[in-house]
């Protein structure tokens, strides 16, 4: 579960990125976070992943209070999250399998756990035949599937996808979104940051719209409802 209570964030250069954001995401939810660039979407993600700290307000992520989390605890909090980026961020010199094992090794998984978990996750994203390929040998959509598999491999309670379809054509984008929906149905909370309204409108999900550092709308179904929210 994620809770932001009256969160403000002002960067060192004086930019006021968030101006009193309140948001609650319960376990098992599928939430789109939408808004134009510069609206504060990325700041919300960075706050949740503890890359930055709020200037004001309270922040809870999966049972961790990020207002007074110790640096030693941060890695353990991050293990409850899986993160997917627009640019995939795969290690090019490692195969698909190695990219996943790398993520599992990073949190101290044993070889036995790797052998058990990785084939299952690859099958979930439909890449079980491509475990030995390098990212450069895969299409954009396939690379994003690898990134999703990597986010999923450590069995997080929540996946945060930051513009996951930004680099993909509409058909691949739809496939990726359907994959995320399926993962959500299996029990993983999903927070998808995007500004692709056509895609958002195809799924009947909760949409939180942020603009100019404030939440301007939070309802189920649709990015634009006839006019700008």
């Amino acid at each position, binding site marked *: 579960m994620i809770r932001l209570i009256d969160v403000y964030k002002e960067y060192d250069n004086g930019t006021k990125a968030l101006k009193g954001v309140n948001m609650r995401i319960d376990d098992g939810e599928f939430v789109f976070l939408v808004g134009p660039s510069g609206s504060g979407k990325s700041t919300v993600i960075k706050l949740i992943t503890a890359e930055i700290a709020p200037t004001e307000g309270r922040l809870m992520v999966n049972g961790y209070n990020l207002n007074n989390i110790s640096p030693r605890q941060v890695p353990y909090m991050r293990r409850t999250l899986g993160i997917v980026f627009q640019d995939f961020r795969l290690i090019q010199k490692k195969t698909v399998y190695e990219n996943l094992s790398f993520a599992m090794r990073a*949190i101290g998984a044993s070889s036995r756990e790797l052998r058990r978990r990785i084939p299952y996750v690859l099958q979930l994203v439909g890449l079980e035949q491509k475990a030995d390929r390098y990212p450069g040998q895969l299409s954009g959509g396939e690379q994003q599937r690898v990134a999703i598999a990597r986010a999923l491999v450590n069995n997080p309670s929540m996946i945060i996808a930051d513009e996951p379809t930004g680099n993909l054509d509409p058909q691949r984008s739809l496939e990726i979104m359907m994959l995320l929906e399926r993962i959500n149905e299996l029990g993983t909370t999903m927070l998808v940051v995007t500004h692709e309204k056509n895609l958002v409108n195809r799924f009947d999900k909760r949409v939180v719209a942020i603009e100019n550092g404030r939440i301007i709308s939070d309802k189920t179904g649709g990015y634009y409802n006839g006019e700008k929210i």
Partner: protein
Amino acid sequence: MARRFDAGYYFSEGFHSIFTHGFMSFAAVCMIVACLLIMGSFSLVAVNLNDMLGDLEDENQLAVYIDDSYTEEQARALEEELKAVPNVTNMTFVTRAEALDTYQQSHNNVELFEDLPDDVFRDRYYVHIADIAQMAQTKANLEQVEGVGDVVAAVEIAEGFVLVRNIATGVALVLVGILLVISLFIIANTIKLATFYRREEIAIMKLCGATDGFIQWPFVVEGLILGLTGALVAFFVQWGLYQLVGKVIIQGNGLSLVTMIGYTTLIPTILPVFCGVGALIGVGGSLLAIRKFLQV
């Protein structure tokens, strides 16, 4: 998934990382070798100098002359009292007759000395001391003993020895200190380069929830391997150099004024010291390089 210390993984990652920026690793090893060689050579000179000084110190004794009015028996009776003086280790008693004998033997071709009476000489003790730096104080203490007529000691020479040794040790320590710092920064730069090569991987590891310890261990292993490799290479090169210098000295040293300690007798000291210093600068350099960057 529990926290584990995966030594195999750390070693494998650290080992492979060395070859991904092979030239820099090679340069780092070369610099460690150079630093250890300079440090080792200087230390070996100091050790040999110290050894030679030690020999000279052993020969540096005080002559305690007993008062003329004392009989030989009375003079012998002073031994316990003289032994009680601090810093005195052992002594030999020499009677007037023996002293005369020695004197005549050393001038055996000079007729003039042949019929000298032995009361020209005094009974005496030749005294060895533990610490030649305290020779002047010991000399004064010996003079205080009743029955001692005179004490002759080469205090200036003793102080000269102590000064030379102190300077040699001081210079060696300063030089070693400077070289250690230089090596440390070279290793730190190599590891910084390694972290730069792997910055993407590190960012991903952090987002996956890797602990700082997990991220830094492979770099520590890398530093350790570089340090130990440098130490081993330096050890063997030092061996060769030492033998070479030894040969040159023996050839040009007919009078055996200069003696050298055999390298093999020094191995039990040199090898652990080189490995220890190599490991220290390797690990120290790694920690120095990644400490700042882990605070993200």
